[in-house]
């Protein structure tokens, strides 16, 4: 399948580039697909490719020696992953796996170097992307260090529901929610029941319905 220039144009990396520049970059992009649970890259392996999600969702995660998973990010269409090892030459910081069928665009480390050399605007865009990434991880550290489990679950629900403009929000299992907020599956279940008892949410079979966002925000504000 041919690489879609309109998609490239819409990504933060290539924002502000003209049609001729995008055509030139397009030749360096390849397409890859993956199915649910398929690993796209492994933590610790050499970082050779920068990926963009075109369709579907990918989870970026680390795994402990005991097999416990911590999801760092869920990457949605238009967003990139594996940026850091491509730029600093180190190994992959985390593993990445498809959360459902996905279509990806990839650019090799060598070709990213060419793009940055030939189009300095891209470097400026990358700085903004990585700055935003830093904010995300600072927030994650804050949550894991200072918020109790129910606050973290409440925050996850609020952020997930409020990002309505973001496409491809995958449905989440309790195990996935646990991996995102750094707790055990059972604790997510208890937190959801507690939030339901508070009247903040209603669990309607496979739907978690946020009915009192203010109550959720107040729960998010509860620190350790």
């Amino acid at each position, binding site marked *: 399948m041919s690489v879609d220039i309109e998609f490239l144009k819409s990504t933060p990396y290539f924002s502000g580039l003209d049609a001729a520049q995008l055509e030139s970059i397009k030749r360096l992009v390849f397409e890859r697909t993956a199915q649910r649970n398929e690993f796209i890259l492994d933590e610790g392996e050499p970082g050779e490719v920068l990926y963009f999600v075109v369709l579907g969702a990918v989870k970026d995660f680390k795994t402990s020696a005991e097999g416990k998973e911590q999801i760092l990010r869920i990457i949605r269409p238009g967003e990139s992953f594996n940026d850091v090892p491509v730029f600093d030459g180190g190994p992959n910081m985390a593993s990445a796996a498809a959360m459902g069928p996905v279509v990806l665009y990839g650019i090799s480390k060598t070709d990213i170097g060419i793009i940055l050399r030939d189009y300095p605007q891209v470097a400026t865009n990358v700085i903004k992307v990585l700055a935003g990434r830093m904010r995300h991880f600072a927030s994650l550290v804050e949550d894991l260090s200072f918020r109790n489990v129910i606050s973290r679950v409440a925050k996850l629900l609020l952020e997930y*529901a409020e990002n309505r403009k973001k496409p491809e929000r995958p449905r989440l299992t309790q195990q996935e929610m646990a991996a995102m907020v750094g707790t055990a599956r059972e604790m997510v279940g208890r937190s959801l029941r507690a939030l339901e008892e508070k009247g903040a949410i209603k669990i309607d079979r496979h739907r*978690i319905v946020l009915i009192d966002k203010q109550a959720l925000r107040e729960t998010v504000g509860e620190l350790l």
Partner: protein
Amino acid sequence: MVQMPEIIRELCNGCGLCVTVCSHNGLVLINNMAVVIETVECDYCTLCEAVCPTGAIRCPFEIVVEEC
């Protein structure tokens, strides 16, 4: 159509724990593989997902805001 738990066939080892724990007849073993039976009796309790030792059962949730 009733939203039911999802089985990842390649992960199912046919242990039958999900069938045992389900009190709503939503799961059966066929040819040593768990199969979901669509039924309105399923209340999406997610016990099948919790008890599965291989992660072969998924009970995903949509997270939505109540429309006023």
